[in-house]
């Protein structure tokens, strides 16, 4: 059993801080900043079962939390936000008095009831003010290793997890606004719940007019489309939105990378079956006959499965940047599962 609490303050980092270009410069080199980190670390190692026949079950548990808080950035107090990273659309900020690693981007415009407001044309409205959409820093991380051994055999299973924290997924944004992800089938045709509508006089720049009966034809014989979706929001007067949008416009307006970032923010929590390893150690008497010290054979599989994952279509562990700008993902290759075979011989 191992328990630790820590509370550490870091001062005077060398920061290449982004500044408003109106100063004449894009960045300023500062020797400043005060960041406080505190948290718990716990590790527990115990053996629930050990029999005389040689069977042993061992558990190794670890758990840690970390709260990272930005106390101040520069001595003069001008800077409130330090840009840790950006994918050009959404920035990751360390903001004074706040949790480290805020994801700062465009959000839906909401009324006082928290309902999303739509524009007159039925597309969701964007809040003119950028907002903190989440933090990439997790609430806690942990892992559990179960290992079972009997005679020369050993099976160990590592499961680890990261809970809390958010991620911006440009993969989802791109996949949805271009319509290549399966989720975007929703509403694209009658079979998937698409609503029927037509354009007055087939003028496609006009407003789509809904048809209550999907089998009905349009009054003027216009072409009837079946890919209508109504965005779930309210009009500026607070009444439910009723304007129908063609699926293409719906997905483009809701998920475009340069549109509303909030729609592509996901909970980054996951539980992963990180590693399973089965090994066999050849008995010493056998090995000694071959004039060797030890022989171990093992089969290893890594990154085998997600036991829990909240972000669709991506591995929340993949990242756009390896630096401070975490919490951003953009069309990264997923983590690969690997399977291996090892033979260890000691002479």
């Amino acid at each position, binding site marked *: 059993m191992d328990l630790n609490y820590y509370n550490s303050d870091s001062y005077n980092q060398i920061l290449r801080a982004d500044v408003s*270009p109106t100063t004449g410069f894009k960045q300023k080199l500062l020797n400043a900043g005060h960041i406080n980190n505190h948290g718990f670390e716990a590790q527990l190692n115990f053996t629930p079962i050990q029999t005389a026949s040689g069977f042993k079950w061992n558990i190794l548990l670890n758990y840690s939390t970390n709260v990272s808080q930005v106390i101040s950035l520069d001595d003069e107090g001008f*800077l409130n936000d330090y840009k840790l990273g950006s994918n050009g659309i959404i920035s990751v900020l360390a903001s004074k008095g706040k949790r480290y690693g805020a994801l700062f981007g465009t959000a839906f415009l909401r009324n006082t009831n928290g309902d999303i407001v739509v524009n007159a044309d039925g597309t969701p409205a964007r809040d003119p*003010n*950028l907002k903190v959409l989440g933090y990439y820093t997790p609430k806690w991380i942990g892992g559990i290793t179960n290992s079972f051994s009997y005679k020369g055999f050993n099976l160990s299973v590592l499961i680890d997890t990261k809970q809390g924290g958010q991620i911006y997924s440009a993969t989802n944004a791109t996949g949805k606004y271009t319509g290549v992800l399966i989720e975007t089938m929703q509403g694209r045709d009658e079979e998937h719940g698409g609503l029927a509508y037509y354009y007055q006089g087939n003028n496609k720049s006009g407003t789509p007019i809904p048809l209550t009966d999907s089998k009905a034809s349009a009054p003027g014989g216009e072409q009837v489309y079946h890919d209508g979706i109504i965005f779930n929001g309210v009009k500026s007067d607070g009444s439910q939105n009723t304007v129908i949008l063609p699926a293409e416009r719906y997905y483009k307006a809701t998920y475009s990378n340069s549109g509303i970032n909030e729609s592509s923010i996901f909970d980054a929590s996951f539980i992963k079956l990180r590693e399973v390893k089965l090994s066999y150690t050849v008995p010493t008497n056998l090995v000694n006959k071959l004039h060797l010290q030890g022989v171990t054979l093992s089969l290893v599989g890594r990154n085998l499965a997600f036991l829990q994952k909240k972000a669709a279509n991506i591995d929340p562990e993949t990242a756009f940047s390896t630096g401070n700008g975490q919490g951003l993902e953009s069309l990264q290759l997923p983590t690969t599962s690997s399977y291996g075979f090892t033979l260890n011989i000691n002479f």
Partner: protein
Amino acid sequence: MNIKYIFKGTITLAFAALLTACQSELEKINKNPNESTTAQPDYILANAIKSNADLLQGSDASMETTTLFVQHWAKIQYTDVDKYVVNPTNVQNIWTNLYSQGLNDFAEVIKIGQKTNNPNYQAVGLILQSWSFQILTDLYGDIPYSQALNINQFLTPQYDSQKDVYAGILTNLKKATELIDLNANPIKGDVIYNGNLARWKKFANSLRLRVALRIADRDSQAAKSVFTELAGNKSNFIASNDEIAQLTYLASPNQNPVARDRETRDDYRVSKSIVDRLVLLNDPRLSIFANKTADVTPAGYIGVTNGLPVDSASRLGLSKTSKLGDYFTAPTAPSVFLTYSEVLFNLSEAAQRGFIQEDAEALYKQAITASLLQFKVGSADITKYLAQSSVAYNAQNYKKSIGEQKWLALFSQGVEAFAEWRRLDFPQLKPAYSGVLNGNFPVRLTYPTGEQALNIANYKAAVAKQGTDVVTTKLWFDVF
């Protein structure tokens, strides 16, 4: 004295000596002997002028924004921006480039001018700085001005009202003309006028006319005083097409940004609005502004409606619509800052407003003539053009006459055309076909998103003063 203390003292002194030696050594070590540490004004000046010129012609301030808003150009592919879905990256780039490149460099040129007692570097720096601020305030409204470009004192500069920015520009431009020394202190790196300081003075005075008219609907007294001070002597201004303030580009890699775009892209066409107008007026500039369609068509010149849905635009066909004229897509095409014709239009309007006692109609005709000559139209065609009733000056509705002709003369000077179209409200254009602003036009750019991340308190104060940070919020100068 105790020998122990002497010993200790000596040790301390020795260490102290060692430490200071160490420090100076450290400072020396940080200096790269192979790198120049003092900037040469000529290199900075040339670079900053090119940076601004590129911006004015490039995709951020022109191709993807202003030139579409005023319906000089239209998009035939990727039409979103033509429907007023302004790309935040363009908005950020204009701001960042003007402040951290052009403006910062001009400030450095001024500083070097002060240090080396060269008033001409100071003057040229001041003129170009004022011009850059004029572009910024025209586009965004209230902007950081008095606290800008002073990072050691103001890490988060406050926004000044547009009124104060224009006033500051007028003061500084006048100061610059007074600083200019025609007899000594030559300057280098001047890729606009090649060191001809008399012309710099003309450029500064011509800019003063531009800014004076910009505020004329708000503060006609201030506007008038500029004209009464200067208009007595026409040689105070850019007085011929040879004196136009512009950067003439060279061959690749120093080619015109439009030419560079056309090397790989084919996204733009000439707007239907201007093609139809030029046809209606039998305007000889049609064949300069637009090319005939690649496929032979009966009309020859076919413009594209602004803000078409992607499918409609692609149905029109790349080969059945008019591309921008070769004059503008040549690698050596200039980035134009201020023309002789603009000066004459401004004088004409000032006469009409009663700021000066001159013949507004005659000046209007001279302005059109200057524009036609700028595009190499022959004198017989000019006479024929001016004789048309559709071109005649209408004193009762001077904003219409001047607005429509200025809009033509400012073709491909998107930023200035956008400002003057907002101020004069002519020509009356129809908003983009499937525009997203409920039938409205954009009348400014929003502040770049970076300001919300890095200068939030001042950003909020500016928005509270100026109005919601959307493209449809009218700026102070834009009264009507």
